[in-house]
């Protein structure tokens, strides 16, 4: 278990022996059985929190209790969660830009000057996927907007709609017609607007009510909607950035796939013979 993990798929260098595996299985089996027995034996302690949430729900600005807990009662956790997403995005950002010999819109020397979405002119396009996406992407955008709006009363909310938009972005990138550049100025703005809006709201309500993140009761609904809109844009951009930086390969490696691998992804083939 303490060996370096393998990176090649069928490499059997660091496998544990059979006896070690059986001992591990027995130990984990005993642990699991004892956990199950302990969970059966101890009775569920009744918590006062659900009753408190039901009492204060009318003053929270929304009717969905999960949204109320996420964005009003425990909004500090959500603030830090968006911060964690932004930290991971910053860690993975340098890998997501690549050299612009496909398209003249891509940034050359100044990475901030690229456009967020640009049309690829001479790369491989998957025509079936592109034809489906002409219908599917507008529907996904409408669905994401609906889910953002209806998160106040029904199941939905910022995270779900942000994930839907990120899924649409992944499909668009796979079709090959458009490519994203996440070092452009507008991409950086979209990625950070969630955290910025949240913190502006958090500090801005402090003079009125005396505590940061404590919304005034009559403004709670609109403030939650504002935070959710900014958070949706931010979450969608960051999740798409995460996929983009993993699916882009650095062009000087110029990969030669193995025999089991037959599907190229259009945004990362940089054939040097193509002019």
């Amino acid at each position, binding site marked *: *278990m303490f060996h370096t*993990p*393998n*990176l*090649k*798929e069928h*490499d*059997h*260098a*660091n*496998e*544990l022996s059979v006896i070690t*595996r059986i001992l*591990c*299985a027995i130990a*984990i*089996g005993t*642990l*699991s059985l004892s*956990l*199950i027995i302990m*969970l*059966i034996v101890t009775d*569920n302690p009744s*918590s006062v*929190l*659900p009753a408190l*949430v*039901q009492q204060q729900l009318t003053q929270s600005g929304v009717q969905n*209790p*999960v949204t*109320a*807990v*996420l964005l009003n*009662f*425990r909004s500090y*956790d*959500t603030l830090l*969660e968006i911060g*964690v*997403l932004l930290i*991971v995005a910053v*860690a*993975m950002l340098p*890998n997501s830009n690549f050299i612009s010999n496909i398209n003249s819109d891509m940034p050359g020397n100044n990475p901030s000057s690229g456009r967020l979405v640009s049309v690829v002119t001479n790369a491989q396009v998957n025509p079936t996927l592109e034809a489906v996406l002409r219908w599917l992407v507008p529907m996904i955008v409408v669905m994401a907007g609906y889910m953002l709006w209806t998160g106040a009363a029904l199941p939905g909310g910022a*995270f779900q709609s942000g994930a839907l938009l990120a899924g649409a972005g992944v499909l668009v990138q796979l079709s090959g017609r458009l490519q994203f550049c996440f070092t452009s100025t507008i991409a950086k703005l979209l990625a950070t607007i969630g955290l910025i809006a949240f913190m502006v709201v958090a500090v801005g309500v402090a003079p009125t009510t005396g505590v940061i993140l404590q919304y005034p009761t009559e403004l709670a609904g609109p403030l939650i909607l504002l935070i959710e809109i900014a958070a949706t844009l931010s*979450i969608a951009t960051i*999740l798409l950035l*995460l996929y983009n*930086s*993993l699916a882009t390969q*650095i062009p000087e*490696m110029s990969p030669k796939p193995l025999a089991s691998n037959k599907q190229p992804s259009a945004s990362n083939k940089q054939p040097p013979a193509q002019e």
Partner: protein
Amino acid sequence: MSQDLLYIIASIGLFGIGLYGLIVAPHIIRKILAINIMSIGVFMLLVASASTVNGTPDPVLHAMVLTGIVVAIAGTALALFLAGKIHTLGQASDKDGH
């Protein structure tokens, strides 16, 4: 056997399977898969103890699990990125050094 009990057993089972896979599996992507399976098990335990027979389920635990799902994908993305970087740098050093 009530619904809660069934899902509690499933969650501990998932956690155990994930832990065994984390220790035993040799490839790094399988280890990341095992960690994700362990986190699914933990979330299932939280949600199973949040559901009540009558009335609304506990929304604080649901919000916690929602936060957990998003942080889990962030951690998985970072781990996969580091695995890719180890692979790239290892191959670069193989090409230059040896």
